[in-house]
C-alpha cells in the first residue's frame, strides 16, 4: 500500500491539479459565463437591439460616487446572472423520480468537463506541457466521453416524468447517436493524413507542416497539400455541423426546442440544477471548439510566434523569455476558441431550426455518406503521394 503511494509521481499529480484548476475555474467557467453574455449581446446586435448594457459594478454601494460600467457596459451581467441562479428557489416537483432527477444535471456537465482533460490548450509553460492528460487516443477519448453526456439529458427527460422533457430526452438520444457517427467518421481523413491520434503531436505536426485547414501557414504550399485540402475542408464542414448537432445548438436544438417542447429536457428544472444544464451546453461548445481548433486550426500555434520553449517562430523574438511565449500560446488558443464561439452564436441567430426528419436525413443520408467517400478520397490521394 505504501509502496503503491510512493510509486506515484507527485510532481505530475501536483502540476496536473494546478492545470485542472487553472483550466476549469480560471478559463472555462468564466468563459462559459461570458459566452452567455456574448450570446445575448451578439444576438441583440444582429437583431438591431442593444442587449444587456447596464450592469456594471455597483461601486456606489461601497461609498464611491459613480458605478463603474466598463466600456461596452453590461460586463457585470454574468456575475449578476450567476448570483441570481444560485439564490433562486431550487424546486423539485413532486412527480419526478428523485434520484435520477438529482444526478442528471451533474452527469451532463461532468462528461463535458472531463473531455477538456486531453485538449492541449498551450505549448508549455516553464517546461510543463499545457495538457492535463497526454493520451495517445485524444480525439477518440473526447468522442467517448462526450457520448456519455447524452445520459444526463436522457435521464433528465425521463426522470422529470412529464411529456415535454420526455420527448426532449428521446429526441436528444436519437440525435446524438446519429450525429456521433458523422462526427467520428468525418475526422478519419485527418487521422489518415496525420498518422497519429495524440492531440499534442497533432498540433506539433501542424506547427511544422502548416495548419490543416490553412496549409500555407508554414510558408510553403505543395501540390499534395493543395489536393489534401479538399477532403480536409469537407471534413471540417461535416465536423463543425455535426458539432452543432452534438451540442444541441440551433439550428439543431430539437431536444430543447422552445416552440414545440417548452424547454425540452430541462423543463422541470429550476435554479442551479437548470444552470448546470446551461453551463454544460456552453462548456460543450467550448470543448467542441477546442477540438476543432486543435485538429484543424493549428491549436496554440500562430505563425512567427515561438512556442513555450522558445523554439520556432522568428529568431529575434527569442530574446523574450520563454514563459511569456507560453502565456501567449495559451492566449492564442483561447482566442481561436472564442472566434469559433462567435461563429456558433452567429449561426444560431441566423438560421431557423431544422425539422426533425430533415435533421435525421441530413445526418444519415448526406453526412454519413459524404464522410465515407471523403475517407476513400483521402486514402486515394495519400496512396498517390506516398511522400
Amino acid at each position, binding site marked *: 500500500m505504501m509502496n503503491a503511494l510512493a510509486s506515484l509521481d507527485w510532481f505530475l499529480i501536483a502540476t496536473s491539479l494546478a492545470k485542472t484548476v487553472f483550466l476549469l475555474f480560471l478559463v472555462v467557467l468564466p468563459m462559459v459565463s461570458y459566452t452567455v453574455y456574448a450570446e445575448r449581446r451578439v444576438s441583440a446586435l444582429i437583431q438591431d437591439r442593444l442587449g444587456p448594457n447596464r450592469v456594471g459594478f455597483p461601486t456606489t454601494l461601497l461609498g464611491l460616487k459613480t458605478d463603474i460600467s466598463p466600456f461596452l457596459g453590461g460586463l457585470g451581467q454574468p456575475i449578476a446572472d450567476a448570483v441570481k441562479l444560485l439564490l433562486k428557489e431550487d424546486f423539485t416537483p413532486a412527480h419526478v423520480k428523485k434520484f435520477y432527477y438529482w444526478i442528471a444535471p451533474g452527469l451532463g456537465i461532468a462528461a463535458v468537463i472531463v473531455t477538456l482533460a486531453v485538449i492541449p490548450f498551450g505549448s508549455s509553460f516553464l517546461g510543463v506541457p499545457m495538457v492535463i492528460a497526454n493520451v495517445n487516443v485524444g480525439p477518440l477519448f473526447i*468522442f*467517448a466521453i462526450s*457520448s456519455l453526456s447524452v445520459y444526463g439529458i*436522457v435521464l433528465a427527460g425521463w426522470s422529470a416524468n412529464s411529456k415535454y422533457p420526455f420527448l426532449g430526452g428521446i429526441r436528444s*438520444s436519437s440525435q446524438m447517436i446519429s450525429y456521433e457517427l458523422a462526427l467520428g467518421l468525418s475526422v478519419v481523413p485527418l487521422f489518415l493524413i496525420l498518422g497519429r491520434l495524440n492531440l499534442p503531436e497533432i498540433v506539433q505536426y501542424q506547427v511544422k507542416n502548416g495548419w490543416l485547414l490553412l496549409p500555407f501557414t508554414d510558408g510553403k504550399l505543395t501540390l499534395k497539400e493543395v489536393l489534401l485540402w479538399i477532403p480536409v475542408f469537407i471534413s471540417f464542414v461535416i465536423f463543425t455541423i455535426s458539432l452543432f448537432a452534438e451540442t444541441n445548438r440551433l439550428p439543431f436544438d430539437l431536444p430543447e426546442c422552445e416552440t414545440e417542447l417548452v424547454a425540452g429536457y430541462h423543463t422541470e428544472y429550476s435554479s442551479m440544477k437548470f444552470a448546470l444544464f446551461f453551463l454544460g451546453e456552453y462548456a460543450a461548445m467550448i470543448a467542441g471548439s477546442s477540438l476543432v481548433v486543435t485538429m484543424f486550426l493549428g491549436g496554440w500555434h500562430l505563425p512567427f510566434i515561438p512556442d513555450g520553449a522558445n523554439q520556432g517562430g522568428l529568431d529575434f523574438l527569442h530574446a523574450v523569455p520563454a514563459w511569456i511565449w507560453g502565456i501567449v500560446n495559451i492566449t492564442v488558443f483561447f482566442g481561436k476558441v472564442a472566434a469559433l464561439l462567435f461563429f456558433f452564436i452567429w449561426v444560431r441567430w441566423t438560421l431557423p431550426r431544422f425539422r426533425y426528419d430533415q435533421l435525421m436525413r441530413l445526418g444519415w443520408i448526406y453526412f454519413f455518406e459524404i464522410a465515407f467517400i471523403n475517407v476513400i478520397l483521402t486514402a486515394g490521394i495519400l496512396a498517390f503521394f506516398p511522400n
Partner: protein
Amino acid sequence: MSPLFFWIFSLLMLGFAASVVLNRNPVASALSLVVSFLGLAALYVSLDAYFIGTIQVLVYAGAVMVLFLFIIMLLDLKAEQRRKLNIAVTAGGVIVTLGFVAQLIHVLHRLPIGNQPFSALPAPLDDVRNVGTTLFSAYNLPFQVVGVLLLVASIGVIVLSKRELK
C-alpha cells in the same frame, strides 16, 4: 499502474454488474450496466490499453446502451417491477453462477498461463497503430469476413423492417 486501481475498478464493475440483475427497474439496470462498462474501460486503461478502453466507452456505453435506454424508455416497462420473486429460479441461477465461477477458478489455476508473471510492455505503447497493423496484416481475412457479416446483418434488418411496413 497501482494495483489499488485494479481493486477499485473491479469491485465497481462487479458491484454494478450485480445490480444489473438485482434491480427491478429496467432503467436502473441499464444504467448499472453503463457504470459496469465504464469500470471495464478503466481496467483496460489501467493496463495501458487506451484504445480498447476508449472504444469500450464509445461503442458500448456511448452508443449501444443509449439505444437500449432509448428502447426501454419508449416501451415504459412496468411488468418487470410488478413480478414476484421466484425462489426456485433465483436459487437455480445462483447455483449455476457459483458453479461456473468455481470451474473458472479451478481451470485457471491449473493452466500454466494462469500462474505465470508477465513482463511489462515497452513504455511508449502506440496501441492504436499496433491494433491497426495487426488487424490488417495478421488477421486481414477474418476482419474482412466480419465486415461482410455485419453488412449482411444490417441489410437483413432493413429487409425485415421494410416487410413489416407493408
